[in-house]
């Protein structure tokens, strides 16, 4: 098991945003309430050019969270050794504050599908996920955080609840958890459970970062709501309420605003960060959610 004590730094309990190059000038001029940035690891694996130069400059001003979207930790097959080496290279030169990845798979049999695909929660997948996380943590020589997915369907073969599965992964590997509150809301709506009950069961003591983002609304074959994680819209009120509930149990946490498609102007994104700020302020001053 990885020794989680060896991770010296943590993100501030403040709002951060997913970094988009179109916001570079705004961020450098005045980041406002935005106190840290998250980047997708795979976008910064080129040899040079603007992406690397910008990241170098931003890392001198902001704590950086590196968020991997392509390792396929939930994959049936072995982790891609080349990709592990690329992650290690990035983490080594950038020395980010935290690193996170997803409870999902994206690569099978040599093909990368560029989406976060779901896995059943069984004893066998638990062991596989833990093996992969151990391998990653040993490779990058630091703790990672694992993010809960957005679910659109359920596997009949699952024998673990998602919060229990994540708790067990954290306990066996020493990894931290990244709690995506929008994903909880999306999954709970889609799979017909109470999102607050999920949060109540979730091992909040392991959470080192919270994600918030927007989703799209659709319907399934039976006219039931089918929410789709899109990171392309404002965060809806019920998700903000679920954040308040979460923070009331967990205390202050670093909160990331994710907006990856139909990226808005800086002012709109910053407004979302201000709202996260207000949620944190309520907790800090002891105003119950």
């Amino acid at each position, binding site marked *: 098991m990885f020794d989680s004590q060896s991770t010296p730094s943590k993100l501030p309990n403040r709002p951060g945003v997913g970094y988009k190059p179109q916001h570079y000038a705004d961020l450098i001029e005045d980041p406002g309430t935005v106190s840290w940035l998250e980047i997708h690891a795979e*976008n910064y694996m*080129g040899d040079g050019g*603007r992406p690397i130069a910008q990241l170098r400059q931003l890392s001198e001003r902001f704590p950086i969270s590196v968020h991997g979207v392509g390792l396929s930790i939930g994959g049936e097959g072995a982790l891609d050794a080349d990709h592990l080496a690329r992650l290690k290279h990035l983490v080594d030169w950038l020395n980010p504050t935290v690193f996170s990845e997803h409870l999902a798979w994206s690569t099978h049999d040599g093909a*990368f599908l*560029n989406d976060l*695909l779901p896995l059943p929660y069984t004893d066998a997948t638990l062991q596989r996920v833990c093996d992969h996380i151990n391998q990653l943590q040993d490779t990058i020589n630091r703790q990672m955080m694992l993010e809960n997915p957005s679910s659109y*369907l359920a596997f*009949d073969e699952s024998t673990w609840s998602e919060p229990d599965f994540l708790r067990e992964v954290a306990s066996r590997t020493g990894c931290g958890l990244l709690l995506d509150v929008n994903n909880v809301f999306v999954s709970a709506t889609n799979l*017909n459970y109470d999102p607050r009950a999920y949060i109540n069961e979730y091992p909040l003591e392991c959470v080192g970062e919270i994600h918030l983002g927007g989703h799209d609304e659709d319907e*399934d074959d039976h006219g039931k709501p089918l929410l789709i994680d899109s990171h392309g819209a404002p965060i809806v009120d019920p998700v903000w309420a679920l954040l308040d509930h979460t923070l009331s149990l967990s205390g202050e946490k670093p909160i990331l605003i994710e907006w990856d498609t139909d990226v808005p102007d800086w002012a709109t994104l910053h407004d979302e960060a201000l709202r996260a700020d207000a949620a944190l302020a309520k907790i800090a001053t002891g105003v119950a959610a």
Partner: protein
Amino acid sequence: MSVTQSDFRGAIMDGGKDRPEGLSDAKGHPAGRRFDVYRNNVAVSLTDALATGFPTIAKLIGTENFNAIAGVFLRQSPPSSPMMMHYGEGFPEFLEGFEPLAHLGYLADVARLELAMRRAYHAADAEPINPDALSALPPERLTELVMTFAPAVSLLRSPWPIHAIWAFNMQDGPKPQGISQDVIILRPGFDPEPHALNAGAYEFITALMAGGTLGAAAAVATDDAPNFDLSATLGLLLTGNALNSIDLPS
């Protein structure tokens, strides 16, 4: 029953296949449209990646055609790694062999130009030489000069006017004429720029890239094109920060 990732992947990439059994809506109904979210996510995200990487191709054939063609390509050649910045390396060859587009013979070479631009964007940084370093050399020894190029620099040769087609579609350039064009991709700062090359310049730069001396490269170029303009070509390389070392071998 257990759903394998092989089954899952197969059903994602082939909309004609049945959705895997063992997936439900948590109330006992088969997953149905819920599974199609993944089919859609994969197809849309890969199509978007191709459209972002090949904007000139998308403009030339129209969004609807591009999306249809991307749908064929992505099923035949999904990414082989999570490095999406490299996705589409095989797209030019695919376009070349795609029968319904055979009448647009220039598409593959225009796609090669766009790929080269993308590679240049992510290429390693290199400190360019100071142009004064050239004038500081003893003039009588200039023909012995050898040079190395920045990693972002690359050459393309096409029987089609690929630079003009790119400029017409992306930069409001004049209507392309039916000529062949050689192109160099330069990256003077962080933004790659394609430049059409004058006669002989392709041969000249190719010889230099192979380690040939300035004199030998100029001779090859003049051999090919008697009107080869040495100073204009060197000027282009210097202003484009194409050179990262010059050396007079002792």
